[in-house]
């Protein structure tokens, strides 16, 4: 099984080489939808411009400007690694970046992407440099991921999901700030929570924004 996988990667690479020799791809065409054209494992790929390449670059620039809602120049590359080695690979990359001057912006390991490491870099060459020669890294860099694919995993889980009836909480914002309270109702949809203020002589229920509350042990 394993060797078959590697063979497939190798075939992909060869496939890429063939394309590259025809001058059809440029690894900096980050907005290209053609994943194969973004494969990085090729050092022959260093800028031999022909007229058609320049055309492609112009196209890429246009794509870039229409696609440029993001302010940073970050690109995100997912690379397959041996499953279960995510933390180790991340640490090895960290040591490498700290000892060499590689302009990598970040390394991301997502629970939802088992067997992958995502690197954030200004371009694929830097991502390649950061990963080159690292054990457990399998396969090669393919096209970059849009930030929106990653962003959803970064969004902090709303506080409300952790709140339940009868929980004791502290109010951390709003007019009742720093009061202790007990939850009597949770509206998960609206992210609103009704609480009884424990410090108040009259335990009147008040409804507050879930994000104003912090669970107390």
């Amino acid at each position, binding site marked *: 099984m394993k060797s078959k996988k590697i063979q497939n990667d190798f075939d992909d690479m060869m496939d890429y080489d063939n394309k590259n020799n025809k001058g059809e791809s440029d690894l900096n065409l980050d907005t290209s939808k053609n994943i194969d054209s973004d494969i990085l494992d090729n050092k022959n790929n260093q800028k031999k411009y022909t007229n058609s390449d320049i055309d492609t670059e112009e196209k890429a620039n246009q794509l870039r400007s229409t696609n440029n809602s993001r302010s940073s120049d970050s690109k995100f590359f997912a690379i397959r690694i041996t499953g279960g080695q995510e933390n180790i690979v991340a640490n090895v990359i960290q040591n490498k970046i700290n000892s060499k001057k590689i302009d990598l*912006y*970040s390394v*991301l*390991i997502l*629970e939802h992407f088992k067997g992958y490491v995502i690197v*954030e870099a200004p371009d694929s060459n830097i991502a390649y440099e950061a990963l080159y020669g690292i054990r457990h890294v399998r396969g090669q860099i393919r096209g970059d991921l849009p*930030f929106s694919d990653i962003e959803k*995993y*970064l969004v902090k889980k709303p506080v409300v999901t952790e709140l339940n009836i009868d929980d004791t909480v502290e109010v951390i914002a709003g007019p009742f700030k720093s009061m202790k309270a007990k939850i009597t109702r949770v509206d998960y949809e609206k992210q609103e929570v009704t609480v009884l203020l424990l410090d108040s002589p009259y335990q009147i229920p008040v409804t507050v924004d879930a994000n104003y509350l912090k669970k107390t042990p």
Partner: protein
Amino acid sequence: MPKELACKNCKAITIGKVCPVCHSTDLSSDWTGIIIVFNPEKSQIAQTLEIKTAHKYALKVS
């Protein structure tokens, strides 16, 4: 490998007893996801997560 703990306050991962980023001692062994930030000014992920200090962080700490 020494046990890595994540700061409940800023999510920084450490093998020490004190968070090297915010100096909290409220650390947890129950964390998932990793983001290692090398360049907080340029990293879009760091900006999204409001991470200002280059370091290794957990994405989720409980």
